[in-house]
Each structure stands twice: as structure tokens, then as C-alpha cells.
């Protein structure tokens, strides 16, 4: 099981969760942060610090947001398990679904 970052993070990337994660498993993509499903230890430290409530436990995702489980996992398809975000650079790519997502400025701001 793992925690998952979902749509509210896109174009926001507050990074409070990155500082909070005890195992350094939250990686930065171009437009969104991603949790490495194999490195996440399910501790839940990230979830309450997210200012936009973008982080969910895998089981708690709604039917509409289920896709983010695969979006987080697939982001790491070509990088494997780097073993810590501190040593990894900010990626210049995103999962295709995120890359093609409408930019926040053109969307309604969520409250």
C-alpha cells in the first residue's frame, strides 16, 4: 500500500510534504509531486501537512481519482527506485496525464 498525490498538487507543488517525509520518497516532477509507491512506508506524515489536501491513502481515493495510483507509480517506470529524493534532481517531465492537464491559471481555483 502507499500514499498517493492527486490533482490538487498540479502547478502548486507546495513541497511541505517533501520536508515531512521520513523516508524521502516524494519526488518532484515538472508540474506535480509524486510519491514512490515502493519507497513509501505508509506512515501518513505527509497527508496532514498538504495545504491543498492532495494526498490520500490508496484506499481512500474516490472512483474519480483512482487513476492517480497508477499516475504516481508510472512516473517512476523509467527511473526505478532512486532511494531518496534528496539526491534526485527535479524531473523535467511529468506523467502524460499530468503533462496534458489544463494549467491551473485556466482552471477554477479550488477552495
Amino acid at each position, binding site marked *: 500500500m502507499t500514499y498517493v498525490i492527486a490533482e490538487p498538487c498540479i502547478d502548486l507543488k507546495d513541497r511541505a510534504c517533501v520536508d*515531512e517525509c521520513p523516508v*524521502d520518497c516524494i519526488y518532484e516532477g515538472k508540474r506535480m509531486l509524486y510519491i514512490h509507491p515502493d*519507497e513509501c*512506508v505508509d*506512515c501518513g*506524515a505527509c*497527508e*496532514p501537512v498538504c495545504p491543498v489536501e492532495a494526498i490520500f491513502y490508496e484506499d481512500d481515493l474516490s472512483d474519480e481519482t483512482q487513476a492517480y495510483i497508477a499516475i504516481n507509480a508510472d512516473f517512476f517506470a523509467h527511473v526505478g527506485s532512486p*532511494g531518496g529524493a*534528496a539526491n534526485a534532481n527535479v524531473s523535467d517531465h511529468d506523467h502524460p496525464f499530468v503533462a496534458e492537464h489544463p494549467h491551473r491559471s485556466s482552471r477554477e481555483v479550488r477552495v
Partner: protein
Amino acid sequence: MSTIDLPLPGARTGTELIPAVDEGVTQTGKDFTSDQEVRWCPGCGDYAVLKAVQGFLPDLGLRRENIVFVSGIGCSSRFPYYLDTYGMHSIHGRAPSIATGIATAREDLSVWVVTGDGDALSIGGNHLIHALRRNVNMTILLFNNRIYGLTKGQYSPTSEVGKVTKSTPVGSLDHPFNPVSLALGAEASFVARTIDSDRKHLTAVLSAAAAHRGTSFVEIYQNCPIFNDGAFDAIKGMGDHKGEKDYAIIPLNHGEPITFGVRDEAGPLNGLGDKALVRSASGNIEVVDTADISTEAILVHDAHDPDPSTAFAISRLTAADYLNRSPIGIFRQVERPTYDDQARAQVSDAAAKVSGSAEDRLTALINAGDTWTID
């Protein structure tokens, strides 16, 4: 009184007598995950250790029903609930004693103790050192967060002097234990130290500990995010201590010169760290600049040295106050006869030699030794 030479059972690995899974059966971490909801605080280092153990146990290739985790009391001691193996949440400080009984009675079980700095070193201090000197075939995982977490933040036997906690509002007066020094002093045959968040190192140490026949003692630095947050930030290079990791960790690898600090592969030190351990004129171990000495002078780590003195001296380099320096890795790994192997051999030898009916033997026992007939 006299002593006799005991027969020594041949060298074995830690898991040699334990049934393996059937051929073709592949276990995964999920096979070792129980249906219990994990209840530690968010961010607790215990999650990371649990995940690493669940990921590592399949590598052992042992039957789940032949694995036992025994814990005492404390946050760490909730561990057995979350593993789909046999387990026992036992008596405060007494897990090593209960595990001694299990390991001695059942050679076909892989026995693990999960304990913390409070459980193992306060109330259980006695039980821990005696398990270590007996060298019972089991692995003891001591989660050291340097605080009492379950009781909400009182100082523990590994808390630093001057620490302000709920039970020491004007600072702790107690000199802390260094768990590795303690284990080496008790002549434990396998002593290691690792870190909750370094899964690769943790897994490698667990693997070596399980393979070792005898008591394997593993101290795991474990962050308590609620009552002692940041205690290991220097070791992890996190928080206010970003970038300090290279100088905070002294990595121990058997057969390699012990150096730490910045490693420049292309530089004149050939990938060695810019700090090194050497033996001083007085016989102690001290830290020097690598550039100031010859490469031959650097202490080479020998975990297999029968004499624990050098390992002990290395363990003393651990910072006693805020943990900004600590040797990490396997300090000691030596072969020594195990209590349980010898006890089983003694019992079966003695049983093979008896003759006569049970009643005659009981009468002979009652009349044996220091008995008198009072007129």
C-alpha cells in the same frame, strides 16, 4: 567443583535448521503483512523498519509458521501484530528471556526480538545482557529513539545528559548507555547499528544478522517525530543538519579502511573520506585528517576479530550528546558456540545415557547428593 570440556556443535548458519518454503513457492512482502491496522504516529520511524522487515523476510525463504517475533512493551513492541508470522507481545523487558526459551526448545524456529531503548535497557537491561552472553540463536532488534514514546515523552536510558523532557524539566542527570558498547561489553557475537530510513543498509544488516548463528544484536536509530523529532537529523542530513551526513556517519565495512567525510573519487585520496580512524600511541582509536597520514596507517575494519576491544573503541566514537557522529554498520561478527545448540546436545546426551524405570530413577534422584536420614 570441576569444569568439563563441552562438545562444540559444528558451525552452522542462523537459519540452517529451519524448514524452507516448498520449491517453486515465492513469498512477497504481502505474505508477511497481517490484517491489523498499523497504529503508530504519522511519520514514525517504526513504519520504515516494518516495511523493510516485511520486504526482507521473503528473502530468507523460510516458512512463515516457523518464524516468531517476540516483543516487550513500548511503541516498537506493537511490531508482532503487523507481521503475518507467529508472535508474542510479551512482558516488559523480558522478550529476550522468552525468546531464549523458544529458541532453546525449538531449533526449527527463526526467533526475533523487537524491543526499544526503554524496554531493553531500563527494565530489561539484565535480560538483554544475559541473552547476549549466552549467545542464544536469535536476532534482537533494538529500536533506539532516545525517548519514552508510548508514555508520551520521558527521558530514556539513551537520552543525552541535560535533556529536557516531561520527567526531567530542568535537564536529565543520567549518563546515557551506548547500546553497541553495552552489547560488545557483554561479548555479543554479532553487533550492528543501522538507521530506520536507510532501507538498503537496514536490509543488508538484517540479512547478515539472520545468517549469523548466535545472538545478533542490531541497534536501529529510529526517529520519534512526536517526542524526540530530529534526534537523528545529522545522521540523515535532514532538517537543520542538511549536508552533515558525510561527517556524521562513520561507515564500517569488514576488510575496508575506515574513513568518512567528503569522498572525492578523482582527488588525491582516491575515493577515501577526508577523515580517517587510526590507532593512537596510547592504543585508543582517534579521528585524523586522511591527508595527514599514510594510507597504510588507516585502521582496517575487522568485524571477525575474536577480541572485541577494537570494536568497543570504535563504538566509543559515537557522540554521547546530540548525535552528530556515529559509526554505522557491523561492528562484530564472530563464531561462538550457542547456548541453545549446546543445551539441546546436553539434554539428548544425558537422556541417551539413562537406564532403569522412571520410578527407580526418581528414587535414585531423591536419594542422591546431599541427603541425610534423621534418626
